[in-house]
């Protein structure tokens, strides 16, 4: 075996051993870490360390997958009855024969809002544990896909590490909803680098499928891929002597292929029209109006801030948190324009064009609901153009130093890496402790919940089982769709939360459903912050429904903080 190959294999094995050490019980893990250390020690002390190639890459990916798994698999963590409930509630509905988009309203996407969980429930059984295993696996894959994106941009492990760090600075903990979009981005970056039609096609397939998993991320992948593909095609056509590959066409074909199975299922369920109406007409308008948060005014920030204070505003995000990513992207677009004007783009520049397009389109999500969570969720892509700016400045030390300083101030790379390291270290003890101290809940499977939350769910379950026959259900006006899952009742309306039925016609639809079903009980308020998203109460958001509940339901009990109303006799 050639020394280079042998070293690559050893390094890859060492990384896989590290990955296994993270997952294995501490006693075994220590031996595995020792083995990994020994392997790495042997190789690094070799005269010339030249470990590279696919083996090392695969070893690194295994390591990241293990890190992702240990971070995101927490079977004893508390359940968020709103966030997790948006997947658990509809998944439970699908098990009972609900049709997507007709009987449910998947605002994040069919797969993310219960579709994928329903599939897992059918395979493994409906439980919180199944949901957590499924989510941890997809989120760990998202982290791995992010690393693949970072590598695909530069095809250099060193620069991939820079890009991955920059991306994690924007979003220290990835979300499962990003998984397919990150996969599509990795393929797009590679396609742009290598100008390979088959890669454009595969990127399209993944983007098309992403539409049905996470609608917004699927749209980001498609819009960014098409615009970048078109721009690169025009540039390639301009530069003489180079074949012009229209990536956008291949991407479109791939997207059609990727979407086809899902469209066929929807057509079988007679939900095709509802899918297009809900996904492309209703949700974009509704989400912006009812879920939007002010993003601040860039004009005001730039005009009113004293120039000396401007770097501080950029670093802290005071007033306009999105200003820093916007300026980073503006700089990247300008440099790309300059490079395109000076001749054919290099392969890294072509990939950077894709990364910039992706980040630019994703800004819509960041600016839409402008809070810290969505800044991370959609800002993750900006890390790649930020790393590319550093890459471009690498031959001008002064510019690179200034840029590094400018990027480090708002991104805090050292603090982010420390946070990741501490989170990975703490995840296993936290998991063990939460499992030991937690309590079982109905439909929990092997998962546990903190004792207080488990007691709440038990109390609610007891009350509803006493008051309702197995075929009856209740209506939740407290934005906790997860309760339908834990109490094993069907949701009488297709909306998971109040902001989704704010338009008067939808409030009428909810009232009509309540009138038709005559649900004996209703949760009038949850007694938590969920009663007033963004400081606007459910009663103000849906006054017609609130008025109907006032007239037809009388508060009869407060169980686990929830105010429960009983339908008036003859009402």
């Amino acid at each position, binding site marked *: 075996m050639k020394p280079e190959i042998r070293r690559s294999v050893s390094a890859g094995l060492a990384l896989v051993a590290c990955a296994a050490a993270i997952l294995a019980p501490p006693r075994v893990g220590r031996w595995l870490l020792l083995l990994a250390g020994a392997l790495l020690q042997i190789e690094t002390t070799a005269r010339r360390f030249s470990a590279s190639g696919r083996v090392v890459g695969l070893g690194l990916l295994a390591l990241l997958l293990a890190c992702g798994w240990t971070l995101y698999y927490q079977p004893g963590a508390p359940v968020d009855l709103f966030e997790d409930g948006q997947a658990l509630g509809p998944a439970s509905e699908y098990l009972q024969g609900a049709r997507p988009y007709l009987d449910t309203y998947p605002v994040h996407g069919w797969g993310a809002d219960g579709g994928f969980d329903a599939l897992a429930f059918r395979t493994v059984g409906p439980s919180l544990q199944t949901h957590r295993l499924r989510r941890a696996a997809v989120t760990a894959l998202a982290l791995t896909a992010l690393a693949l994106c970072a590598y695909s941009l530069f095809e250099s492990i060193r620069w991939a590490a820079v890009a991955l760090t920059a991306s994690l600075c924007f979003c220290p903990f990835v979300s499962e909803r990003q998984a397919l979009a990150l996969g599509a981005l990795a393929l797009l970056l590679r396609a742009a680098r290598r100008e390979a039609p088959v890669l454009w096609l595969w990127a399209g397939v993944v983007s098309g499928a992403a539409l049905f998993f996470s609608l917004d991320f699927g749209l980001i992948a498609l819009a960014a891929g098409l615009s970048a593909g078109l721009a690169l095609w025009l540039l390639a056509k301009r530069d003489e002597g180079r074949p012009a590959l229209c990536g956008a066409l291949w991407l479109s074909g791939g997207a059609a292929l990727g979407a086809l199975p899902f469209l066929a299922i929807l057509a079988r369920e007679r939900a095709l029209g509802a899918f297009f109406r809900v996904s492309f007409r209703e949700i974009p308008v*509704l989400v*912006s*109006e*009812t*879920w*939007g*948060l*002010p*993003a*601040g*005014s*860039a*004009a005001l920030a*730039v*005009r009113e801030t004293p120039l000396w204070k401007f770097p501080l505003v950029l670093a802290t995000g005071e007033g306009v948190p*999105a200003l820093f990513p*916007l*300026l980073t*992207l*503006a700089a990247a*677009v*300008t440099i790309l*324009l*300059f490079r395109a*004007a000076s001749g054919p783009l290099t392969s890294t520049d072509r990939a950077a064009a894709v990364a910039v397009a992706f980040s*630019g389109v994703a*800004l*819509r999500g960041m*600016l*839409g609901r*402008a809070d810290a969570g969505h800044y991370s969720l959609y800002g993750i892509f900006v890390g790649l153009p930020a790393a590319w700016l550093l890459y471009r400045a690498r031959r001008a030390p002064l510019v690179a130093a200034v840029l590094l300083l400018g990027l480090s101030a708002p991104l805090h790379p050292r603090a982010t890496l420390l946070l990741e390291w501490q989170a990975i270290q703490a995840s296993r003890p936290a998991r063990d402790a939460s499992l030991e101290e937690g309590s079982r809940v109905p439909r929990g499977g092997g998962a546990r919940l903190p004792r207080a939350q488990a007691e709440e769910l038990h109390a609610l379950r007891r009350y509803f089982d006493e008051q309702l026959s197995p075929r009856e259900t209740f209506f939740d006006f407290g934005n906790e769709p997860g309760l339908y899952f834990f109490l094993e009742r069907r949701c009488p309306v297709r909306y998971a939360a109040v*902001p989704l039925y*704010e*338009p008067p016609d939808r409030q009428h639809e909810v009232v009509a459903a309540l009138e038709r079903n005559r649900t004996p009980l209703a949760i009038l308020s949850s007694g938590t912050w969920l009663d007033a998203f*963004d*400081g*606007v109460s459910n009663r*103000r*958001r849906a006054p017609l429904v609130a008025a109907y509940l006032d007239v037809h339901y009388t508060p009869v009990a407060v169980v686990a903080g929830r105010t429960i109303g009983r339908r008036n006799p003859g009402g």
Partner: protein
Amino acid sequence: MAAGLRAVGGTIGGALGAVPLLSVARETAGHIWTPPGLPGALAEARDLKAATYLEAFVLLFLIPASAFFFGVILPGWLARRDGRGPLVRSAPGLAFGISFWLWRSGLPSGASLALASLAALTLAAAGSRLSLYALPPMESREALAGLLVRAAAWTIACRCAGAPRALWLLFLACGAAAAQARLRSRIESWRPIA
């Protein structure tokens, strides 16, 4: 690399000069769209999401486009028109950059952009005919000195009148002086030496 360095002034000026478009975007959105009618944080704050998206459009497309125009396209055109001096090629971009300063000084965004565009246009028109860094022949130097003295006098006079109005008058003076110089047709003889 040298060409790149020469373009820096124009690029920075072009980028900064387009920043007042942020205000234009916000005002335009205010004229076209209305705040959301459904209850939510946006309606509470009377915030216009369209204005935010338009601002993002300005930052992502118009500012880089302006930087590219003043950093690459215009300098290239001026170079083809025999404007060999680097300042001639950067001058329109730098002049356009003044709109940022005007805007921050309190001038409305439209006015600051119009003034800076006028200044950039004037300098580009003049620059296409002469090189400010090149020494003109003796008889033309006298005319150039006259122009500069007049511009300086205008500047001092305008400074006394207050900042925004002063710049208004300065640009007016520059434009008039350049037009006058052109009318005298001596400008044709200001060819760069070397």
